């Protein structure tokens, strides 16, 4: 078995590594856009404007209450049909990943904002700061310490979640693993290699995150 794995790796490592490249790319782009949209959604959700609140609640309700695989299918098959447009497959899937991740990131950011003492908002308002300035200058800079570690976790989740793109044969690690399987008829070694790569990446990210969190807390002790 070990021998098979080594042989497979020697011959097909470039396929796996390219797949990993795809996985990281999809994860990064999804989380990046999700942070952008999630922040907007969180601020809308916390605004005193009721229609925004209802809109975001509805969105969260749908995204968190349905399986992500269904959402991927919807964007892959349903949306192009509804819009009557030819949309590249990777665009469909990345869009679905972003739409899904935005919901979770929205909640992470909302929790981070709500964890900032309300007295800070009151102090900002009492100085005559506009809502926008109070949010961007006072609340968000303090919320970021609560938000960043949770976002790191979201990224780790995303690295694993992008494997669902293999259902649609997009170039990422699970697809690479399938490709090697069908080329060699060696399913188990291919799976083990893919699993080890995932483990390696998530472990490195987890340690990186823990290190980063310790740094944050250190600065907190000397600052806040």
């Amino acid at each position, binding site marked *: 078995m070990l021998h098979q794995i080594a042989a497979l790796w020697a011959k097909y490592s470039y396929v796996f590594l390219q797949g990993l490249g795809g996985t990281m790319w999809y994860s990064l782009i999804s989380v990046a856009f999700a942070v952008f949209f999630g922040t907007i959604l969180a601020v809308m959700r916390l605004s005193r404007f009721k229609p925004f609140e209802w809109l975001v609640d509805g969105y969260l309700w749908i995204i968190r209450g349905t399986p992500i695989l269904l959402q991927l299918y919807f964007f892959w098959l349903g949306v192009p049909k509804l819009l009557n447009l030819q949309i590249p497959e990777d665009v469909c899937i990345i869009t679905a990943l972003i739409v899904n991740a935005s919901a979770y990131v929205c909640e992470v950011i909302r929790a981070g904002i709500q964890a900032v*003492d309300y*007295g*800070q908002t*009151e*102090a900002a*308002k*009492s*100085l*005559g*700061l*506009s*809502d926008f*300035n109070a949010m961007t*200058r*006072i609340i968000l*800079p*303090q919320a970021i310490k609560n938000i960043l570690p949770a976002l790191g976790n979201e990224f780790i989740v995303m690295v694993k979640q992008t494997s669902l793109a293999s259902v649609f044969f997009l170039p990422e690690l699970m697809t690479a693993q399938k490709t090697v399987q069908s080329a060699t008829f060696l399913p188990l070694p291919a799976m083990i290699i893919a699993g080890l790569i995932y483990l390696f990446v998530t472990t490195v990210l987890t340690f990186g995150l823990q290190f980063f969190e310790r740094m944050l807390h250190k600065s907190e002790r*000397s*600052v*806040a």
Partner: protein
Amino acid sequence: MNGASPNPQRVLIRVENLSKNFGKLQVLRDITESIHEGEVVSIIGPSGSGKSTFLRCLNLLERPSSGRVIFEDVDLSGRHVNVDKHRQKIGMVFQLFNVFPHLTVKQNITLAPTLEKKLPKDEADRRAEELLTRVGLSDKRDEYPGRLSGGQKQRLAIVRALAMEPDVILFDEPTSALDPEMVGEVLDVIKDLAETGMTIVIVTHEMGFAREVSDRVLFMDEGRIAEQGSPDDIFKNAQNPRTIEFLSKVL
């Protein structure tokens, strides 16, 4: 503050038929009252009497359930009023300081003037230095508030409010969260401020301070101003049995 001596005839804040409910709980009942320019008004009373809520209605941190709050002839509770703009003229100091922990001492002071009054940065810095010197914090200018004591934080909060050159400052129990040995330094700053002619409304449990510094004392009970008058009227010659009972407990 701006050089002109205060005109005690001029009404700065007028409250008309102000009521406030939190759900079914009625906290303020039909209060009508005026604050004049240059006046130092202390609000005393048992906890739950609505003192802080009344104060927080003056700058619309609490929206009145009914009635009006008129500041410098503008009805703040009206629709289409940019409350943020008017709040720049109404400073507020909180019980729990609420200084901004992610900004340095100096940045705490310069943030609002540079952002909202478009004051040039060097001018804002210069004024921050002046204010810090005035309250004995100039050596802390580049520290973060986490390094300050409670008394220092509260002095910072006071000059942060002063940096906007407000026409009135509201103090919401400014010494209640302080260790006893730090109460004096904060009260001294407020006393100095009162002597400059600043209009001050202060909710306080410091009866000695209220007696010494105020022009007028309001005693609140069950959402109403039950009695008011000069410090002597209230502390030596109270008429209302509730006032007498309260003072007998705290003095």
